[in-house]
């Protein structure tokens, strides 16, 4: 099977300027995320994981180097085009869930579809379907504050899937959950990968979670230290 890159980073630098001090959060990272793979990025706090994920998710532009999404260099793209592309191709899952408190579960899952101009009936239908798939069929009209942490993160997963993205990006998705609930979320992500063939990028500092991934990228001081293939899992979906 010919591998297709969903996103490619070439010698990417991210430099933050804080007054006179500069922080090199990423220092020449080159990386491809292949279609259908489950890749984990692991590293100590401050190593640049979130910075990297923001770039992979087209939330930010590099200071130096190039990022190609569908062959197009995102540094050259307008912010509003970038937003459209994020909405269509990328599904984010955050540590803090980031659900809108005023909206029901259905409303939150439907939100990304609003920005793609999908009509309401279609949105509700799809949101219901997705919430059913994360076992929240009974909680469609609950507000985030009426849901447990694990349930909220499942709503967030459903939301990330709303526009059939090419890739799911999860930054510490279990960081705010206890280990049992965290385990449920992880196996849900694993299922999305093995059963649905979804591309998943997981960012974590928890070494126990990388066992779910096919490929583990070790990040240290803004550079890729090593890449390890997880052979135990690697062949499952191929």
């Amino acid at each position, binding site marked *: 099977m010919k591998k297709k890159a969903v996103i490619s980073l070439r010698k990417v630098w991210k430099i933050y300027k804080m007054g006179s001090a500069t922080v090199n959060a990423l220092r020449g990272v080159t990386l491809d995320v292949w279609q259908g793979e489950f890749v984990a990025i692991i590293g100590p706090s401050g190593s640049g994981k979130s910075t990297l994920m923001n770039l992979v998710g087209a939330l930010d532009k590099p200071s130096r180097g190039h990022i190609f999404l569908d062959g197009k260099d995102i540094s050259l793209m307008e912010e509003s085009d970038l937003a459209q592309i994020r909405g269509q191709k990328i599904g984010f899952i955050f540590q803090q869930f980031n659900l809108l408190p005023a*909206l029901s579960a259905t409303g939150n899952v439907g939100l990304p579809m609003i*920005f793609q101009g999908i009509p309401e009936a279609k949105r509700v239908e799809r949101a219901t379907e997705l919430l059913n798939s994360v076992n929240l069929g009974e909680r469609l009209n609950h507000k985030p504050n009426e849901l447990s942490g694990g349930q909220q993160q499942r709503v967030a997963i459903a939301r990330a899937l709303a526009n059939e993205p090419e890739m799911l990006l999860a930054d510490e998705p279990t960081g705010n959950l206890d280990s049992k609930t965290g385990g449920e979320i992880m196996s849900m992500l694993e299922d999305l990968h093995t059963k649905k063939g979804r591309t998943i990028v997981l960012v974590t500092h928890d070494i126990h979670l990388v066992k779910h991934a096919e490929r583990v990228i070790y990040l240290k001081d803004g550079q890729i230290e090593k890449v390890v293939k997880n052979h135990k899992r690697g062949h499952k979906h191929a």
Partner: protein
Amino acid sequence: MIKDYVYFAFLNFSARKLRTFLTVLGIIIGIAAVVGLISIGEGLQETINEQFRALGGDKLIVTPKGGGFAIGAPSGSADLTKDDLDVVRKSRGMDKAGGMIFKLGQVTYGDERKTPFVSGIPQDETKDIFSDIQTFSIVEGRDLMDGDKYSAVVGILLYEGEYFDKSVKIRDRLTIEGQEFKVVGVLGRIGNPQDDSQILIPLEAAREIFDEPEKLDFIMGQVRPGFTPSDVADSVTRDLRKFRDVDEDEEDFDVQTFEQILETFSDIFSVVQAILIGIAAISLLVGGIGIMNTMYTSVLQRTNEIGLMKSIGARNSDIALLFVIESGFLGLAGGIIGLIIGASMGLLVEFGASQVGLPFNTHLSFTLLVGSLLFSFVTGAVAGVAPAISASKLKPVEALRYE
């Protein structure tokens, strides 16, 4: 999708009801003031117009220059006479015209002597020109009539004993300028002491006792149906100018129509209304600034949400639109409440007026209704533009990290 943004706006309002209410208070007051003032003002103006028309829309008045409704022309100005009346009568478009005299007269009743206003009213066919515009009625006895000579109708204060020590009754006798008159009627209350203490007598009797065979203080004419009062006033002015041999703009007389008097009144009214609306506009401006302030606060509080929306595909324009719609509806909400309060104010005034017997309807026009709502929405939306732009320019990563 605008419908969704409107829905989000209402979710946000209901999540912060008190703040929403306080924010729109300025708009509420401004719109309530505008709607209240205009609806009451328009109603009032309509009522006044109607009353004026009913009374004397087809009348015109000729007075010596500077005389107007005041008593006695200033010294040096020429008097009006019977001959002037004849000229007025013959002017184009004039139906009929009459003249009257009014003067301060020496009046003795019992052994008391006072100096009230005495008016000589014609009793011929021109009498009804005067009685049309005189809003008073006869409450006791009868009005003056053709054939009366030394008969008088007295103001209510005389009848009530408020003017002379002893009250003046029907069939009592008064001495005016040395001539004895019989009281035949009493006028209803007009409301000011000067009018309520006046005495009306036939014009012929007034000419005799004041020794004024020619002079008239006041000529009133009625315009023939189909003619415009102001056109007739122009031809009266022209004719009188020729007759009295004066140049244009140097006339020693005034010709006024009720239309003109009404216009003068309207002008004053519009000025007052403009000032009040100016004040209301200031409160709307303050209201707009209040909304702007709230929207800036809201952008700060919702920075994280904005970051989230951007990460899931919201463009800058989506975010800007979302906030402009929200602040527009904030303004509209204030406008609706203000409209209700303003309209109720109008109805309250209307009710109050009806309690004291004033015929008065507030007038809430469709333009005012739609205009005030549109205006409050636009005020809110405009106030929201700057905060909305600042929201739309937030960088997604930084907005997401914001706590």
